[in-house]
């Protein structure tokens, strides 16, 4: 099991207050923004803050941001490649 991916699911549920969702229900390959979870641009910014705070990864470019937050799997990969925690 991918621990980073599991951690991210739990953090997403916590910071976005998705009280009716369990980590198991989040499909890491499903569309993250504008998908079933109802995540929008403000949620993305909240995730940006969380990613910087927890993993030291700064995302401040809209175009790159759209790719990173396309799916949870993409976000996991990006953090793994760029976070000092994983280097």
């Amino acid at each position, binding site marked *: 099991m991918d621990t980073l991916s599991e951690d991210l699911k739990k953090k997403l549920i916590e910071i*976005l*207050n*998705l*009280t*009716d969702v369990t980590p198991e229900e989040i499909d890491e390959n499903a569309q993250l923004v504008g998908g079933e979870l*109802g995540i*929008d*641009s*403000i*949620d993305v*910014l*909240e995730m*940006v*803050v969380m990613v*910087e*705070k927890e993993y030291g990864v700064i995302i*401040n470019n*809209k175009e790159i941001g759209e790719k990173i937050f396309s799916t949870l799997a993409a976000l996991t990969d990006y953090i793994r490649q760029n976070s000092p925690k994983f280097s």
Partner: protein
Amino acid sequence: MSSKKITVSIAGIGIISPLGIGLLATEQALRKNRSAITPLTVFPVQHPSPLPVGQVQDLSDSPLPRTHRLAITAANQAMGGYTHPPDAVILGSTTGGILRTEALLAQGEQDPEKYRYHGLSTVAEEIAREVHCTGQALTVSTACSSGSVAISMALKMLQADEVQWVLAGGADSLCRLTYFGFHSLQLVDQEGSRPFDKNRRGMSVAEGAALLLLTNQQPTHSYGQILGCGLSCDAYHSAAPHPQGQGAAAAMKNALDNACLAAADIGYINLHGTGTPDNDLAESRAVRKLFDPVPPLSSIKGLSGHGLAASGAIEAAVTAICLERDLLPANTGCLVPDPECKIHPIKKPEKQPVSVALSNSFGFGGNNACLVIGRSDNKPSAAHEPHKADLTILGKACITGAGHTKESMEQFFRLESMAGTLDLKDIAKDLAARKVRRLKRFSQMALALATSVLNDAALEQAPHSVFMGSGWGALSETHDFLDKLQSSKEQFPSPIDFVGSVHNSAAGQIAIMHGATGANITCSGGDYSFEQALLTADNFLRSDEKLHSAFVLAADEFHEHFSPLFDPSVDGNTVPADGGGGFYLCRGAVPKKTSVRLCFFSGNGTDIIDPLIAALGGKEHLQNSCGMILAGIPAAFADDGEIQLDHFMQQTGLDIPVIHYRKFTGEFASASSVAAVMATHLLESGEIAVDKKVLVLGFGKNITAMEFGRQ
């Protein structure tokens, strides 16, 4: 439709912004066209290179917080040469005294006295004190459209001829909440705002104040006219504009209709143009939808930055000055116009006579306000005759510590206190968890009220408009934003909390949930916030043909840290209490329904009880018609309030039950909205004879009267 000629003139202008202090300095800055945006120095930040902002230089010193000082400077300028006080003050503000509050909180200050200027309403109250206005001091908080909405409210009151002189505008100082908040939303351009430029990256947060002395009388000198106003709500998203500019276009169209003008009559548009990619694109689309050809246009925010609640008033003032001086200001910072916007803002200041212009202001919550401004030599405009019709209550609801409407009213009829703080799960029991996941207590309470009001009305169609009152707004979001900001050493504040912290976030959410695309106004008048919302609804519902119905609601949340610091009626011994109430209102009489009338709203000057009695129809009328009084005396004003109530009872000779409603609701700013529901319930349950009225009177800092009766 009947119409009468009425002219609303600008008799005085006060302006203080990054462009300078006063009309002359402002005009010179517009002509020089050199950006006044510079790195922040107003307060220290931990990051070594502060972001560029628009800040006021050389602001005079006084013990008052910065927003108050900005506002008073502008007020004194606007009143220059006039010795007679205005009949009313209407101010738009989003930050109030928060810059000082932020510093006090960081020091761990626990003395409530130090926080006495935190509330938004204190800015309008200080202006009123400064210019000796004893009439209405109203506060509107609709984010970045606040200043324009305040001027719109003044226009409605003057067109109805209820008042003759109104001082209206907006004021906001820079503060950590907005500086870090907009940054957290990645809406700040590190190189300074450059509206409509193809490389634009965002706005520059700024500060300032502008106040217009408006009158329907003949002023000694006129700086122009306010010919019309148009409001709308996107009902789309809490922070992003409708991508096609639907709400923006509706507001511009409403303003033109209100002024009885066509798009072709507009010679210049002062754009909202913040410099954010989304706003500028949506606004340009809206402009192109309405205007063909597109008239000369520009945003001055590349010059001044975005003065938030002040911006609408600053830009109304600038537009008026420019019309008088045959000057069209430049769209500073736009070097290469964005081809996607397909508009060509004015590159350099131009000399060109224009007689009528439009000024746009849009804000969070999809709150849009547009003003039509004319040169002083304009023909009088044809204004719509106000409808002096009653407002009818089609649905009602309240939330108290005892529960929702049914439980609250049962408790009241048992003569037991409803005071308390209802569990959030119970408040939101009828709301989908997913819909409210980003909202905290205040907004959830407001949404729950709107849903209950609609259910009670048993109508499928929700009202078009929302008029909301709140003394303190979203305390949880404000607290959590500042707390995270401080604990993370200014690194990780929450963008969600910032969006939710604005006073009008709740009203914006109601609009989104119920598709209410009409006027959307949030008033913040301390303990009289519900009355201010009702007064505003009354003005708009009877003067705007397009508005037939509205939610009129008020709510306040109890916050364990903030409520005892901010609300002077709450201390360590007070039972924590919160809640709210309100109505689905429509214009005109409906048989067998209850009607509501805001009969009186005034400051607490001397000899105020006689005018109150006169406004209620006089002593004899009151003795014949009045069945019960619900009196609201906030704990902080207990002594004055009791004297005022005694005086009222003696003068009228009334011998009817008087209920001190705060003994039942508990102490919170919008308790009067619950009292309004209590009054309606008393009438509808038959407790009060069908031919009798129930009065809900407010005492203390203001004197207010709402009259409820059966039709």
